[in-house]
C-alpha cells in the first residue's frame, strides 16, 4: 500500500518545538497524514450513511416511478437549483480557505471562511422557505400528507389534468384504482394480477397519466424527500458549527503553513456535504 512511513526523523527535530505536535507522533507530517486518513475514512462512513437513504430512494423510484413523476412537481426547481449554486460557491470559498491557510494568508482565510459560513446560512434559509411551503400545503410524509386545495390547483397548472383536491377522494373517482384491503381479494383475482404483473407497474403509471389521478402512496416520496434533505440539512448545521469554530481560531491566528490540518479536514467534510447535494438535486427535483 502506498502509505508513507514516517520513519525519517529528520523533520522531527525542526518541529520539536511545534506546540501542535502530539507526543506520540514523530513529525507534523506523520500527524497530518494520520489525521487526513482518519478524515477520509470518516467521510466514507458518511457516504455509506447516505447510501442507505439513496438505497431507499432507488428501490421506491424503481418500483413506483409514478409516485416520483407525480410528486416531484410539488418541488421548486429554481429554489433547488439556486441552492446548488450556493453550495458550489461555498465549496470554492472553502477550497480557497484551505489554500489560504496553507500559505499563511490570514486575511484571505478569514474572508473565505466567513463567505462559506454565509453560503451555509443562505442554503438553510432557502431550505427553510421550501419546508415551510410544503408544511403549509400538507405536502408531508405518511399520514400527514394531505394536499390543501390551493396546492391542488397549482398542480393543475403543472399539466396534471385533474389533480384531486384530497388524496382520499381520489380513490373514489375510479373504482379500478381502489385497492381492496388485504384478504378481501379472491384468490383467482390475485392469480390473474400476479400473472401479468410485468406490465402492471407501467399500466398503473399510464393509468394515472391518462386519468390524471394521483397515484397511491404519494406520501412515500415526501417521506424520502424529508429524510434525505433533512439529514443533509443536519450535516450543513454541523458544518456551520465547525466552520464557526475555525473562524474564531483563524481570527486568533492559529493557522499557518505549519498547522492547517483543521481547516483542511473541515474542507473535506464540507465538500462531501456539497457532493451529496449534487446528487440529491437531480434525483429529487429534476425527475422527468
Amino acid at each position: 500500500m502506498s502509505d508513507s512511513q514516517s520513519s525519517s526523523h529528520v523533520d522531527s527535530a525542526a518541529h520539536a518545538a511545534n506546540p501542535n505536535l502530539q507526543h506520540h507522533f514523530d513529525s507534523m507530517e506523520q500527524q497530518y497524514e494520520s489525521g487526513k486518513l482518519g478524515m477520509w475514512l470518516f467521510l466514507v462512513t458518511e457516504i455509506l450513511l447516505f447510501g442507505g437513504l439513496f438505497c431507499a430512494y432507488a428501490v421506491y423510484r424503481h418500483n413506483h416511478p409514478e409516485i416520483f413523476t407525480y410528486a416531484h412537481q410539488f418541488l421548486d426547481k429554481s429554489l433547488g437549483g439556486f441552492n446548488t449554486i450556493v453550495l458550489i460557491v461555498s465549496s470554492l470559498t472553502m477550497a480557497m480557505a484551505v489554500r489560504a491557510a496553507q500559505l499563511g494568508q490570514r486575511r484571505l482565510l478569514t474572508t473565505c471562511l466567513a463567505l462559506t459560513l454565509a453560503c451555509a446560512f443562505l442554503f438553510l434559509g432557502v431550505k427553510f422557505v421550501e419546508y415551510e411551503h410544503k408544511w403549509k400545503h400538507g405536502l408531508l410524509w405518511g399520514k400527514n400528507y394531505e394536499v390543501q386545495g390551493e396546492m391542488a390547483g397549482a398542480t393543475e397548472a403543472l399539466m396534471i389534468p385533474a389533480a384531486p383536491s384530497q388524496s382520499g377522494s381520489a380513490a373514489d373517482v375510479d373504482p379500478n384504482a381502489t385497492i381492496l384491503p388485504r384478504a378481501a381479494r379472491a384468490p383467482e383475482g390475485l392469480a390473474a394480477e400476479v400473472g401479468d404483473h410485468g406490465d402492471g407497474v407501467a399500466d398503473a403509471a399510464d393509468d394515472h397519466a391518462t386519468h390524471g389521478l394521483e397515484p397511491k402512496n404519494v406520501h412515500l416520496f415526501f417521506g424520502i424527500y424529508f429524510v434525505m434533505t433533512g439529514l443533509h440539512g443536519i450535516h450543513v448545521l454541523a458544518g456551520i458549527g465547525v466552520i464557526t469554530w475555525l473562524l474564531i481560531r483563524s481570527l486568533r491566528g492559529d493557522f499557518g503553513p505549519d498547522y492547517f490540518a483543521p481547516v483542511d479536514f473541515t474542507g473535506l467534510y464540507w465538500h462531501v456535504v456539497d457532493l451529496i447535494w449534487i446528487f440529491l438535486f437531480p434525483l429529487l427535483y429534476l425527475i422527468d
Partner: protein
Amino acid sequence: MSTHENERHPDFGHVAPLKALFGTFGALLVLTVATYGATYIDLGPLNIWIALGIAVIKGSLVAMFFMHLWWDGKFNAFILICGLLFVMIFIGIAMLDSAQYQAELIPGYAPAIHP
C-alpha cells in the same frame, strides 16, 4: 497570481493551484446549468441516467480538485472508491431483489393511509 506571494509554502500537504480551483468552479456551474437544461429534453428513461452521469462528473471534479485527491496519495482515493463500491453493491442488490418480488405485493397497499 502566485508570483507576488511571498508566503512560505508548507512542508507537507499539497497547495492547490488557483487555476484548478476556479476551473473546477466554472465547470461545476456549467454542468449545473446542463443538468437543468437536460430536463427540458424528453429522452424517456435516459433522462435519469444523463442526470446521474452529470452528477457523477460533478462529484468527481469536487473530489479530485477541491478535495485534493488528484494530488494525494492513492490510498485515500482507494478507500473512497471502496466505499462507493459497497454502496453500489447494497443499492444494486436491494433494487434487484425488490424488483423481483414486486409481483407479490398488493398494489397501493397502505391501510393506515387509505383504508
